[in-house]
């Protein structure tokens, strides 16, 4: 029983980590709390759903399409709303407010386009019977979810730590003006980062959509709250922290639902967030020095 719960927690937590990773990456580089991120999450899921139902694609091509849809949506939204604000050197709060209006706008538009009801992937897509591994019952889909999330997270780490692009991203996160002076094409890298982080959100949306087999226009809203909890607990802009906090939140939620009450599950992320703000406002792995926004 406990082992089963731990496995379920790993499935959920790895998707949370994936979602929060992109979220914290955008913050680290763009210095913007982007609430549209919840929309990209849903856009990925809907992209994949439409690809499966409308175009008759298989799981993997449909997922790839969904991820690209989410990424492109971010590039478009960024150039329409966030770039003008960045050029005008608007206060940090303005970009938060604009994405807030944006997410209300986009979610409502999505609801008009697809309807408010919960839509489902065809059962045939979700694969075979669950396997028994000793005491564990494991659906093949769950293995796919964990594996996909882990591969994406690892790939992101490699890119950021090991490549020239990663160095450019870290330089921009540190000081965009200096990075530009050093010859980094800031506009290009920023666009790329917003594509990649929204693609991660889209991927998380597809995985959550598959896991619960439910896709609807407002699915991003509860996820945003979890994303906030994870990035605050992990530390704003801290990628390693987001990974640990994402897995931790999945664990706490599954354990609360399993051993306390499933109703309280929804309150876990919020309580953890408020507790973190009281106790460790700069995140789990905060450095002692240096001012963080």
């Amino acid at each position, binding site marked *: 029983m406990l082992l089963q719960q731990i496995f379920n927690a790993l499935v959920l937590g790895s998707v949370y980590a994936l979602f929060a990773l992109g979220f914290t990456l955008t913050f680290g580089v763009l210095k913007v709390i982007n609430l549209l991120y919840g929309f990209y999450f849903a856009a990925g899921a809907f992209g994949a759903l439409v690809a499966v139902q409308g175009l008759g694609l298989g799981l993997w091509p449909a997922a790839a399409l969904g991820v690209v849809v989410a990424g492109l949506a971010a590039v478009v939204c960024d150039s329409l709303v966030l770039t*003008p604000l960045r050029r005008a050197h608007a206060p940090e709060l303005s970009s938060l407010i604009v994405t807030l209006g944006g997410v*209300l706008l986009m979610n409502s*538009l999505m609801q*008009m386009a697809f309807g408010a009801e919960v839509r489902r992937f065809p059962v045939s897509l979700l694969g075979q019977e669950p396997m028994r591994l000793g005491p564990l019952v494991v659906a093949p889909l769950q293995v796919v979810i964990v594996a996909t999330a882990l591969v994406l997270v690892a790939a992101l780490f490699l890119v950021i730590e090991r490549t020239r692009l990663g160095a450019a991203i870290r330089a921009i996160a540190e000081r965009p003006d200096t990075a530009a002076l050093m010859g980094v094409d800031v506009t290009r890298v920023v666009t790329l980062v917003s594509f990649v982080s929204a693609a991660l959100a889209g991927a998380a949306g597809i995985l959550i959509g598959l896991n619960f087999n439910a896709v609807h226009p407002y699915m991003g809203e509860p996820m945003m709250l979890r994303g906030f909890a994870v990035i605050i607990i992990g530390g704003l802009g801290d990628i390693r922290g987001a990974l640990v906090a994402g897995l931790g939140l999945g664990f706490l939620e599954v354990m609360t639902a399993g051993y306390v009450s499933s109703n309280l599950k929804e309150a876990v992320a919020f309580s953890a967030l408020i507790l973190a703000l009281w106790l460790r406002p700069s995140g789990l792995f905060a450095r002692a020095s240096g001012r963080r926004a």
Partner: protein
Amino acid sequence: MDDLLWAYQSLFYSLGTNAILALSMFSVLQLGQLSLGQAAFMGIGAYAGSLLTLKLGLPFPLVLVAAAAVPALAALVVGGPTLRLSGVHLAIATIGLGEVLRVLYINTDWVGGALGLSGIPRRTGGSTIFGLLAVLLVGFVLATRSKIGRACEAIREDEDAARVMGIDVTAYKMTALVVSAGLAGLAGALNAHFTSFISPGEYGFETAVSILSYAILGGVATPVGPVVGAFVLTLLPEVLRPLHDFRMVFNGLIIVLVVIFLPKGVLGFRARRTG
């Protein structure tokens, strides 16, 4: 015919309560703080007020005081740690409050569960609502034109500089937050005591963003702005019926357009004092 009158009467009343909600948002925004918990605070006030009326039969003025005090306390618990952090943190801390409370209301039988509370006696009318609104508006105008207003402006423009000038930034932020949550709770209780029915789903994210859109449209140069914003955005969907179905799209669009085309007009400008 009675239905029609009732519909317009409730529209008229909601102009007043929405204006109070807009002022509650102004209270934090003028310091460069953003609260996304205004709908949740409104809900706490509505539930606290209705329960006190229904279960204890308290007199209405006492109910209103309690309906303002309870959300103010909640705001201190949730927003307290963010007072020393940037304005963005308050938004992050409060964004989930509405959703968590919704789940809590639904699963708590003695607050009516998923059905909400009905049969709340009508205790309020136009004179109470608009009288309170007028008093609050005058209070805010006087405050913004005093030393308090200049301190708020200084904090909004540059928190560190304001602190160096000897302004107790944390105390100002805490007061603004408490006032803000209290007013939202007051509006919630007023609202509950003329609609006579409240349900858990009314105080979510969309309501929070709508409240923000009143303040954004009106601007925070003067407290009159948010009140006008609330009037316009409450009336518009009623006057232009086709707009009604697209209310959320419209509110979202308003926020996006105002922030982009008047970026300094929303938060960054130096407030012109109205004459």
